[in-house]
């Protein structure tokens, strides 16, 4: 399976977590793809932490507005019914629990729902941007990522990189599986049709609670 198709499957599965009327913030990179895979009849309001809600698709060529970009700096549009605000309001929305779902990438995630996605000491230190606020503030935190990186597990017993937030992740969606973070630990909910429970367990460092596993709809 090509990487693009993997990413598409992940985005599609994350899309199924969204319900009509939700306020949703999609992280930079792969999470952005989720906007392309909303189930029929589901109309969500996308929040862009640089200062608006009602984030729409990229504009057609020549229609770019220098003042309308997403949090990654790409030209986007604002849909009718959207609203602009300053950074204090943007993060009041985020920190105050007014975002229903945030979808973020991860370098590592662990058994207690800890997330590391903002730096590799001595290597890349891009900064946390809005990720720490989003992870702490959003009602539901979904990590969307490939299950492994260069064959190494990313779902660990305990994160080794500096944390983005402690015990905030609710759901992990990868190309191989859907895993729920519960008080008891990580529960394997779904496995992709092209793999097996055993393969997922092997690709995961963390302990998985396995019971009534469904096939991941992709």
């Amino acid at each position: 399976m090509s990487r693009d198709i993997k990413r598409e499957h992940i985005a599609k599965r994350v899309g199924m977590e969204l319900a009509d009327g939700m306020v949703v913030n999609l992280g930079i990179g792969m999470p952005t793809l989720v906007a392309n895979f909303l189930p029929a009849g589901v109309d969500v309001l996308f929040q862009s932490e640089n200062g608006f809600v009602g984030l729409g698709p990229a504009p057609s060529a020549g229609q770019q507005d220098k003042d309308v970009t997403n949090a990654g700096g790409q030209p986007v549009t604002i849909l009718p019914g959207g609203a602009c605000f300053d950074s204090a309001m943007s993060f009041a929305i985020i920190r105050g629990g007014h975002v229903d779902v945030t979808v973020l990438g991860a370098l590592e995630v662990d058994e207690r729902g800890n997330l590391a996605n903002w730096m590799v000491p001595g290597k890349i230190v891009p900064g946390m941007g809005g990720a720490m606020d989003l992870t702490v503030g959003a009602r539901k935190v979904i990590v969307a990522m490939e299950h492994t990186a260069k064959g190494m597990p990313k779902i660990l017993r305990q994160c080794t990189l500096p944390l983005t937030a402690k015990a905030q992740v609710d759901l992990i969606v990868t190309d191989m599986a859907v895993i729920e973070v519960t008080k008891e630990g990580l529960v394997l909910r779904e496995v992709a049709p092209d793999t097996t429970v055993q393969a997922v367990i092997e690709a995961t460092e963390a302990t998985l609670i396995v019971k009534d596993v469904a096939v991941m709809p992709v």
Partner: protein
Amino acid sequence: MPSKITTAAAALAALQDDMTIMIGGFLCVGTPEGLVEEVLRKGTKDLTVIGSDTSFPERGIGKLIVAKRVKKVMASHIGTNPETGRQMHAGETEVVLVPQGTLAERVRAAGAGLGGVLTPTGVGTVVEEGKQKIAVDGREFLLEKPLAADFALIKAHKADEKGNLVYRRAARNFNPLMAMAAKIVVAEVEQIVPVGAIDPDEVMTPGLFVTYVVKEAVHEPGH
């Protein structure tokens, strides 16, 4: 998405005795009178009410006080409604006086997910009683905690069907803050316009905060 436009009765259907409600307005400028009327009509009682002031006896929050529906009120000023003072002195209603700027920040803090703010206001006065004092860089501040509510009853000039709100002049006051700080936010508005008719830069309260929009009743002459 289903429309947010409904009636006052439907919007307040979940309001129950003993709940905490915020009511927008400053001396009844920017107060949703129709929603207050609906609370009166429903008969809801033992409310905790948070507002700038207790208005006048015959308007806004004042009417709820006079009708004895309020168990506790948190406000910065009660002087324009003698009945509030009377009930306070008679021990019938609990009155917590909060400096107006502190009230604004406490409501905002709840909406913004902050655990509190440090303010210099009230240091060395009775306002500091029971509060944690924290020194930052050699200056003393009071730790003021967030104030949230079950319902916020607010007033706006204009809304679209997604609940985006625009306020007018001094009728803005506490309304945008309360819109952030309650589980159910009901906005009484003077005008409802189609989605897209309010420019994104003109929106003062994004619709995501607003649960229901109720059109202000136009009182016919003679009513």
